[in-house]
C-alpha cells in the first residue's frame, strides 16, 4: 500500500511542479499522435466517403478489409513499419527509423482504418435519397460529398475520438519504430513502460495520470460538441 501512496504523492508533486521531463514527454506525445490523427482523418475520410458512394465489384471485400483494419494489432504495424524503414528496407533510404516521423507513420497506419471504417458506416447510414436531394438542389459532386460529410459530422467526431484515443494510448508500435530515445522519441506510453520496468513507480504513475487526463479532456471536448447538437 505504501508503494502506491508514495507513488501517487510523488506523482502529484511531479505534476504540480511541472517537471520539465514530464512536460516534454507530454508535448511530444500530443504532437506525434495529433499529427498522426490529422493524417488519418485526411486519408480515412476521403477514402471512406469514396468507398461509401461507389459501387464496384469486390466492394464487399474492400469493406471487410477496412473493418478488419480497424482492429489492426499495433505490434504488427510496428513490425511492418520497422521492416519498411530498415536500412535495407524499401523505404530505408529515408533514414527515419527511430525518429518521431517513423512514429507518426506507424500511428497513422493504425488510426487510418479506424477513421475510414467509421466514415464508411456514417455515410452509408445517411438516407439514400439524401444524395438525390442534394443533387436535385443543384450540387456538383464535390459539393454533394462536402454536404454529406457535414451531415455525418457527429459520427465523424466519434471517428476523431476513436482514432486519437487509439494512437495516444498505443505503445507497441511506438516503441518498435521510435526506440524510446530520451528527449527525442520518448512518449507517455513508452516512458511508462520503461519507468515501470525500472521500478520507478512514482514517475510511471504520474505519466499514467497524464495519459488518462489527456484522454478524458479530449473526449470531454468532443462530447461537448456532440451534445450541443442534440436538442
Amino acid at each position, binding site marked *: 500500500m505504501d508503494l502506491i501512496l508514495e507513488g501517487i504523492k510523488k506523482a502529484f508533486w511531479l505534476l504540480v511542479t511541472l517537471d520539465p521531463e514530464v512536460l516534454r514527454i507530454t508535448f511530444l506525445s500530443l504532437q506525434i499522435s495529433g499529427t498522426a490523427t490529422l493524417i488519418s482523418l485526411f486519408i480515412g475520410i476521403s477514402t471512406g466517403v469514396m468507398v461509401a458512394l461507389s459501387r464496384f465489384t469486390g466492394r464487399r471485400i474492400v469493406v471487410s478489409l477496412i473493418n478488419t483494419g480497424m482492429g489492426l494489432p499495433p505490434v504488427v504495424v510496428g513490425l511492418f513499419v520497422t521492416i519498411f524503414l530498415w536500412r535495407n528496407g524499401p523505404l530505408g533510404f529515408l533514414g527515419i527509423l527511430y525518429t518521431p516521423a517513423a512514429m507518426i507513420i506507424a500511428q497513422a497506419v493504425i488510426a487510418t482504418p479506424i477513421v475510414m471504417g467509421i466514415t464508411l458506416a456514417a455515410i452509408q447510414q445517411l438516407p439514400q435519397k439524401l444524395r438525390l436531394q442534394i443533387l436535385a438542389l443543384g450540387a456538383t459532386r464535390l459539393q454533394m460529398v462536402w454536404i454529406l460529410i457535414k*451531415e455525418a459530422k457527429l459520427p465523424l467526431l466519434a471517428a476523431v475520438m476513436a482514432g486519437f484515443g487509439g494512437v495516444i494510448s498505443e505503445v507497441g508500435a511506438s516503441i518498435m519504430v521510435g526506440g524510446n530515445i530520451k528527449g527525442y522519441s520518448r512518449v507517455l506510453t513508452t516512458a511508462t513502460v520503461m519507468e515501470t520496468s525500472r521500478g520507478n513507480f512514482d514517475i510511471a504513475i504520474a505519466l499514467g495520470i497524464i495519459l488518462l487526463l489527456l484522454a478524458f479532456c479530449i473526449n470531454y471536448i468532443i462530447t461537448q460538441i456532440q451534445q450541443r447538437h442534440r436538442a
Partner: protein
Amino acid sequence: MIKSTPILEAKNLKVERGGTLLLDVPSLSIDKGEILALIGPNGAGKTTLLQTLSYLSKPFQGEIFFKGENVNSVCPVFEYRRKLAMVFQEPLLFDTTVFNNVASGLKIRGMRRNEIRDRVIEQLDRFGISHLSHRSAKTLSGGEAQRTNLARAFALQPEILLLDEPFASLDPPTRESLMEDLEHILCQTQTTAILATHDRMEALRLSDRIAVMNVGKILQIGSPSNVMNQPLDEFIASFVGVETILPGKVVKKNGGSFLASVSGKEIEAVGEVHLGETVILCIRPENVILSAHLSKETTSVRNVFQGKIERIVPFGLYQKVQLGCGFPLVAYVTNHSLEELSLTEGKEVRASFKATAIHVVRKGES
C-alpha cells in the same frame, strides 16, 4: 393563340433496370405555367419519370428538351438541375437550422449572403414558418418539416418544380392546410410544376392536366374532367374513382342512345356503338341518386333500379353505399341524407342515374 415551345419535352424515354422496363414514355410535354399531375398506383413509374426528367435516375434512353434545347448538350448536368427543384415525400432536411435549410440550395449556387437572406425570409414568411427560423430541423413536426422542404424548393425560384408525393406522409389536417397553401403559392408564382401522387383528389385540386400512369406507361393524359369522366379503360376508371364498372352487351340501339344488358338488367346509355358489341359502363358514385320511395314515379331518368343495401362504409365526408340490384352499384350520400332516408344495411331502396352520366368504354377500341 400561337403554341409556344413547351418548357419541357421528353421523347422516347425508356428506363430499364435488370431487364425490367420501368419507364416507357414515347412523348410528354409540359407548357410554361402548367401544373401536370401524374397519378397511378405504387410502382406505376411516377417517381422514375420525375427522377429521369431531372437527370437523377441514370442511365436512360431518350431525349429531354428544356425550352427546346436538348439537355444532353448541357454540360455539366448540374447546370440543368439548377433550373429545377425537387420535393420528395420525405422532407430530407439537413442537420442544421430551418433558415440554413431553406438557404441550402442558394448556397450551393454560390449566391451572395444578403441576397440569400432576403429570399429565405420571403419563403419562410410565405410558408408561415418564420417563427421556426432558428430552430433545428431535427425538432420539427412532420408538417413543419415539409413546409421547410417546400420553402427550400421555392427559394430557388425554379423554372419547373417537381413534387414527388409531397403530402403522402402527413396526417389529414396537416395535409389539408399545406395543400391549401401550396395551391395558393403555385397560383401566385405561376410556377410550372409536375406533381406525382396516388391521390386523385390531390391531382384534381392542384393540376391543369392529369396523366394516369401504370407499369411505366402513361395510359391517358388530359384535362381533369376528361380523365375523370371519360376514362379510356377499366383500370383508369377504377383509379380515378369510378366505383361502378359494368361490362354489358348492346342489345338495342335507339338514335344516339342504346340499351345494354348487364346481368339480365337493361341499362340505357349514350354513345356510338354497334349492336351486339361488348361495352364497359362506368358510373361515378356521385351521379347515383338514392331514394327511399319504392313506388315507380314517372321521371325523365330512364335508369331506375330497385336494390338492397349490402354495405355502408364511411368515406371521408360521405358514406359509400354499396347496392345489389342485379348488378353491383355504388353511390355516395352525405351523412345528412343517410339519416334523412334512414338508410341501413339490408334496406330496399331505389337507385337512379341518368343515361348521360354513364361513360361508355368500347372494348377493342383504343
